[in-house]
């Protein structure tokens, strides 16, 4: 999100935004081929969703506040000062203490992360939405059905099907 966009949105404070980015990096860390969620920009997606839904904004704010409070118990300088293991410990505690807020955070973190073209390319997924291009696929090769086609009827005949004047079941 651009600075102008952020100023206009005013969804999260700068402190919240920074904490969110650090939290996202723990939720989905980077690998040799994939970026960490915070660094990749998944936070922008979370913020956009929060901007669109005031209830979500409140819930996420509550979750971030819980994380900040729990982190402050471990280190006076908060989450940023913790090592990775300590950050994980704080997030596990937050998931218990504020389960709804944490659940919303995961939902939007995952949704945002797996919508990033760089991530999609990294996992081998199309880096575009399903439409309008769709996908090329070969038509069914009916030869695959040769065995099944040789089977006798599997459906049970009924008295209706067998009575005169009605269609034969073909058995």
């Amino acid at each position, binding site marked *: 999100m651009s600075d102008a966009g952020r100023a206009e949105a005013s969804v999260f404070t700068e402190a919240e935004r920074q904490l969110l980015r650090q939290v996202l990096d723990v939720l989905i860390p980077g690998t040799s081929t994939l970026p960490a969620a915070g660094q990749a920009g998944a936070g922008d997606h979370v913020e956009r969703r929060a901007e669109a839904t005031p209830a979500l904004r409140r819930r996420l704010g509550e979750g971030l506040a819980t994380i900040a409070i729990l982190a402050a118990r471990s280190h006076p300088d908060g989450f940023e000062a913790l090592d990775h293991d300590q950050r994980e410990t704080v997030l596990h505690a937050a998931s218990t203490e504020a389960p709804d807020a944490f659940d919303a955070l995961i939902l939007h973190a995952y949704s945002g992360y797996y919508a990033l073209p760089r991530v999609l390319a990294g996992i081998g997924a199309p880096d575009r939405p399903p439409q309008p291009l769709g996908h090329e696929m070969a038509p069914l090769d009916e030869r695959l059905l040769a065995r099944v086609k040789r089977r006798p009827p599997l459906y049970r005949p009924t*008295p*209706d099907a067998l009575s005169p004047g009605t269609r034969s079941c073909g058995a």
Partner: protein
Amino acid sequence: MGAGAAGAAFTWSVSRAGLQALCLEQGDWVDPASYATTRGDWELTRQAEWHPDPNVRRLAADYPVDATESPITPLMYNAVGGSTIHWSAHFPRFKPSDFRVKTLDGVADDWPLTYEELEPFFDLNDHMMGVAGLDGDPAYPPKSPRPTPPIPLGKLGETMARGFDRLGWHWWPSDSAIVTRPYDGRRACNNCGPCDWGCPIGAKASTDVTYWPKALASGARLVTGARVREITVGPDGRADGVVYHDAEGRVHEQKARAVVLAANGIGTPRLLLHSRSGRFPGGLANGNGLVGRDLMFHPFASVRGYFDEPLDGFKGPSPCSIISQEFYETDLARGFVRGYSFQVVRGFGPANSALGGLGEPRIAWGREHHAEHARRWNHTIAIGVMGEDLPEPDNRVVLDRELSDANGISAPRVIYRLSENSRRLLAHGTDRAKEALEAAGATRVEMTPLLQAAGWHLLGTARMGTDPSTSVVDRYGRCHEVPNVYVVDGSLCTTSAGVNPTSTIQALALWVAHHFKGSVRTP
């Protein structure tokens, strides 16, 4: 009432015959251009405004459903097109034996009509909706030629087909209400994947693009944002109209010579039960107390196989590839009566793979996240076990005493218990599905014995029968007690079969419409 699968088919049929038809729909038109699959964040919408559960979605058109006493959550969508906007477009028919379960298996009841009687209406409906499929399936009597070729299997479908072949089991490309060639002014499917996010190109047969344009061209009227409150009754004991709320909450009275309910297996009994009067104190057409009873879902288990090779599971109509009906018909040696279908489901998108779909748990956050996502996304085949649910009077829809919708109409409360027969059936199905996935090469198999968010099919709550003491409507969908009130949705199903019901529900709606036209005089 209701502009979904059945209401659209019925309205088209009667309006084409010159009858004056007015359909009241509490939802609105959905603009296909608004479907999320053209946007980068498309997957998220399934977790929010596009969620199939109205209690989660909570759109203005929705009403709450209390499902706290049911292990299966009812799902529905309220709009022009109804749940066909959301649906997966599975389009198998019920089979001949499904209409004769009492005669053949000694359980439940026979339907008051036969597969053979319904067959012309299946064919008509296939023509109207547009179907992809292949003739010659030995699991069915011969059917009319499928309007368009079958949907592609892709690598995922072919992998699973080999598994079924190794076991010698039945499989067949699913009949799907999707057109694979340009058809009736609609574009061919481009295999984009997520059908249940809505089809922006109209290849999937939602009734807003199939029946409704033709019904409106025939003179039918459709009022959206119209939530029916009750069916009113005249001094002769016959229905004389309805009272409904418009989108602003204003109350309107609409007179009618006949009233037709197409509000689904929960909405229809809700409305009948809400239509109380001095003459019908327990609700309309409910003198025998059966309205709302015999609720059937399709109990559904999910079995997921993980494969080493990528499967291209994001290509092709996601829910539809293969159906297997090896265990459909009764074999008492299995420990249960009736049977089930296997549905082979393609993969989810990357985000919903992480969030968990079809019973998969959410992938844990943290250092192992990527490894598990790599094992799951594009490496999974899910088999859905869809079992036949038998009617039981204690499984039912009642009116909630406290919960109500935005117009103060009592919400439905669903009371449902999974039967022992269904439990055994699903256990058999999950074991066999595991066997099939392993035969196809799965290196790991996980299962969800009963999927909670699987109440797609809402059936049986105004059941059809010949005996007025044991059924709500007759074989023509006409209420025994109030003969100018008709039911055309899943409520009238006498039994549930073990396949998706929409094809059969729509054929029934056309059947009812056919006889309705013959029984009324045009003005």
